[in-house]
């Protein structure tokens, strides 16, 4: 069958995007977390967290969050304040 990239897969979904992120990072705690241990950078199924090498910062694309909660469980430093999106916002599955 046809192969899709992750952005193409996310494009299949319907999101109601809030103005602000429901995923709050304590950037100082993040920076104390050794780079090899930043599980958020690989463990998120929709790759919400990306490392910006130039800015030396973690970019959080909360718009594509599938609300699975894996990042919260995997975060070793307790830097992540994970909330549900506000009521009515976020992903809405058609099949589920």
């Amino acid at each position: 069958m046809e192969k899709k990239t992750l952005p193409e897969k996310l494009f299949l979904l319907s999101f109601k995007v809030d103005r602000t992120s429901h995923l709050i990072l304590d950037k100082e705690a993040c920076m104390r977390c050794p780079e090899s241990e930043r599980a958020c950078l690989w463990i998120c199924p929709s790759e919400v967290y990306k490392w910006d090498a130039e800015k030396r910062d973690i970019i959080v694309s909360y718009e594509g969050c599938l609300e699975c909660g894996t990042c919260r469980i995997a975060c070793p430093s307790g830097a992540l304040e994970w909330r549900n999106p506000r009521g009515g916002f976020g992903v809405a599955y058609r099949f589920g």
Partner: protein
Amino acid sequence: MEERFDCIIVGAGPSGTTAALRLAREGLNVAVFERGKPGAKNMFGGVLYSTILDKLIPGFWKEAPVERHVIRKRFSLLSSDSEAAFDLCFNAFDRPPFNNSFTVLRARFDRWYSEKAEEAGAVIVTGANVEDFIVEDGAIRGVKAGMEGGLVRADCVICAEGVNSLLAEKAGLKKKPAPESMTLGVKEIISLPKETIEDRFSLEDGQGAAFDFFGAALGGAVGSGFIYTNRDTLSVGIGCPISVLKEKGLRPNDLIEGFKAHPSVGRYLRGGKMEEFSAHMIPEGGYRAIPGLVRDGLMLVGDSAGLLNPSIFREGTNLAMASGLFAAETVIEARKKGDFSAKTLGDYVERLKGSFVIKDLKRYRGVPTAITSIPGLFGEEPEAILDFLKGHFTVSEKSKDEIHSELKKAFRDRVSMKRLFLELYRASKILR
């Protein structure tokens, strides 16, 4: 909205809606707060186990949006390029109650089920994210939802918030779960014509199949893959413990792509069109990870309470519905007494203990630790086993004796028999 309810339920999944339906039928004033539209946030592998549902709505399959009833189960051991499988087909499951096993799509099923609770008199509040509880003298007496007029009181609350148990943690009933006790499921919905699915999976109209893949399904990492048949789609996905993803630096999307690329998996998907990509956690911590289940004015049900059988049976929805039902029956009794203390609500825990829910979780309490203590069965061992079998069936001009002694030697050079038997023994605990 009314200012006060007899009971508020957080979450319109199988456990919450079951509780709502039961309470509404009893004539209680009950509200369900759901942060999306019912079903929109929910995903699971694919099989609804319906023993409890059939008691509440007899013959529900005649009206519910079920996809197929599962008559065929297949357990497969993959190596990187081969497969050994155990295929079961029970034609008796083709008759009501269809072995209480139906593939469903949750966006459709949960919406239908929630409507049943609404018809029975429950108030379903959608787009309402409960952020905290109202606490009075140490007792939970309502919810704070992030919306206008979101402060709503009740005699007690049933927390059916799901696997992300933020409220249960706020209520002090559990801590943030450990990565070892959580599995990430990633799934794709792949559409194919109904007839193609039936031909490809050897099914008749309405019949369904559940295929589970072990061994090298995740390219050597601990975890498994699955294909479940829906009416005109397939649910295809993988599950991998979060501790494994974390330690091995694995990307979930790579795992599902790798699984689909296996020749013994890809052939079922040929010509299919991807319709949806989704992810959801599964609370696979089992008996030892069950949190505190009650406090004054509050009960935890379903995934929030970790009520899922992590063994080969993979049952979750029936445990969720049973817990919702027991919680509702406990509320009905508590109301007669006019007492919603933890002591009275503790009857809920007794009901769970007396049922298959806790009995099964207890029986399989060793599974969550066993699954990560058998890494060989996901790595070198299936390779060696399938190479042995391949050699056994390879046609050549060597004598069978010659072939066998070569194969045995090759096998023993690759795999420690002691470790293999130990791992098989541990695996058998998951399987029985």
